[in-house]
């Protein structure tokens, strides 16, 4: 799942952001160098895009797992997810997990309906921006961004690498909840289709949140600001149909079209519609392009 996700992404914005800003034909990194022989024997041709992106992603993943951050976030995530699944009332008025006497993962995936909210989709609003907040803001604060952008990598590769690192981390968080799902499956007959749909939905949702979080991280050198603005944006796109739909009934369908929750619930029903995938895909693409533009904003101060 992660593979296909990222490869479609990688092929898209890798080219467009540079072209959009430079106002000249994007020089693909390989083309730029191909014209002449590499100068020094060890300094090989700059920019194999995939290799660069992967190296940058590995650095980000390494950071999470070399510091307490990963373990704290994952532990917190698991504790709250487990509590939502087993302890707290499952909304929809069914009562708590054991009272409902039905093997389901509704506690994880949250209730349905535009005005209801909860589950991991809501938890992600707070947790994913915490994962992404440092990605660019910290590089700006410590000045390492100056080295990063003077390495022979394009800004788009930097953004994709960091994004990939964050998305893989979100994927790992979700994988960590599998024991919960398996437990439920052991207690009763679990609808596997719905479970898979729910997980796919959560992954897409987390990936979209990560895009927003990365974007806000590029706007500031203060991680806290990046976190707050990121969480706010995530919350907005999560709730938008419930919030604005209340104010203006006629706009309900329109707002549902841009609501993470509405699209998540479509996928989580177990019906994977191309429209939902396209929604998340284009949302992420836009967030990454804006991030790339924000990185390039240093070039505009003329």
């Amino acid at each position: 799942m992660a593979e296909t996700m990222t490869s479609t992404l990688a092929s898209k914005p890798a080219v467009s952001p540079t072209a959009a800003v430079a106002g000249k034909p994007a020089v693909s990194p390989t083309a730029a160098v191909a014209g002449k022989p590499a100068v020094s024997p060890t300094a090989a041709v700059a920019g194999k895009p995939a290799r660069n992106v992967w190296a940058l992603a590995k650095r980000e993943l390494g950071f999470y797992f070399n510091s307490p951050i990963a373990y704290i976030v994952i532990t917190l995530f698991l504790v709250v997810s487990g509590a939502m699944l087993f302890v707290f009332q499952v909304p929809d008025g069914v009562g708590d997990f054991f009272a409902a006497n039905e093997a389901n993962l509704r506690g994880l995936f949250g209730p349905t309906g535009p005005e209801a909210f909860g589950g991991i989709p809501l938890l992600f609003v707070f947790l994913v921006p915490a994962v992404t907040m440092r990605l660019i803001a910290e590089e700006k604060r410590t000045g390492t961004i100056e080295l990063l952008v003077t390495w022979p990598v394009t800004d788009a590769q930097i953004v994709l690498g960091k994004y990939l690192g964050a998305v893989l981390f979100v994927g790992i968080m979700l994988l960590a909840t599998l024991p919960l799902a398996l437990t439920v499956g052991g207690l009763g007959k679990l609808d596997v289709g719905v479970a898979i749909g729910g997980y796919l939905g959560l992954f897409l949702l987390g990936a979209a949140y990560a895009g927003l979080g990365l974007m806000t991280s590029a706007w500031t050198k203060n991680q806290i600001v990046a976190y707050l603005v990121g969480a706010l944006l995530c919350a907005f796109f999560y709730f938008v149909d419930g919030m604005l739909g209340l104010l203006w009934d006629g706009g309900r369908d329109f707002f549902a079209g841009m609501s993470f929750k509405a699209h998540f619930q479509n996928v989580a029903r177990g019906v994977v519609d191309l429209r939902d995938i396209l929604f998340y895909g284009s949302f992420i693409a836009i967030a990454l392009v804006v991030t790339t533009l924000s990185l390039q904003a240093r070039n505009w101060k003329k």
Partner: protein
Amino acid sequence: MIEVSGLTKSYDDFQALKGVSFKVNRGEIIGFLGPNGAGKTTTMKILTCYMPQTSGTVNVDGKDVNQDALAIRSRMGYLPESTPLYTDMLVYDYLHHVATVRGVTKDKIRERIKAACEMCGILDRVGQEIGTLSKGYKQRVGLAQALIHDPDILILDEPTSGLDPNQIVEIRNLIKRLGENRTIILSTHNLPEVMATCTRILIIHQGRIVADGTAAQLEEQEAENERLRVLLRGVDADVARLELGTLPGVRRAEVMPSVETGVTVIELEAPRGAELRSATFKKVVEKGWELLELARLQLDLEGLFRKLTREV
């Protein structure tokens, strides 16, 4: 090799560079001097393709830094001011990361890390977390990072700032060694460092190049004064200073701190061509003083620097 012409850079309403032009030939070690805010770092940031200039051009072997940024970056090593590093990583992991992103092929990475660490003297620290290293070691990791892909151009922004004298000498020797087959541009406030390491000196002030040449050339062009250092034994410092101060042409006579007891060190300054050495000798003989040393001081870089970078 590097050709900078008519470079300007404005930040909002502040003009940091006002038309900087210079050329750097292959194998030169250029010392980039200037007071704080003169435009050294700005120039370096443009050279390394970190940010674009407002106008003017920078060419590296005929390639424009804006057109061929990636190609140029891949043959440059850059150490920014204040050495920003990923402090959470181990030295080895960090260098491995940089080498990968720098495009060093997999089979050469270990070899390159070893070479860079050897050159910078951090071979025994590769397993340490960067954040726990001393300032001097961090600086060396920064240098190793800049060297990892064996670049032919090195741009070092204040590579010795904040180091102790031993470390400064080490880094200086390292730079000299690196300069044997590379082109290096380094900026510094440290004037003796420039004299010791650089083949050419560029002085920048208020966004303009105000001096460009070898130490000897600068002395020829710019230094209008000749300076002598006189070491005398067993004389009264003030008497000697007053006597020598009356020699024809002397503008300044100053008692300098002496490390030996009973020895007076006096520095004299007079316009070029005043035959100060011979006048001093005659005076010393006339007074019957014990002369230990009479030396003409080399380029007065500090004086030159002050003169050229006086606030206008």
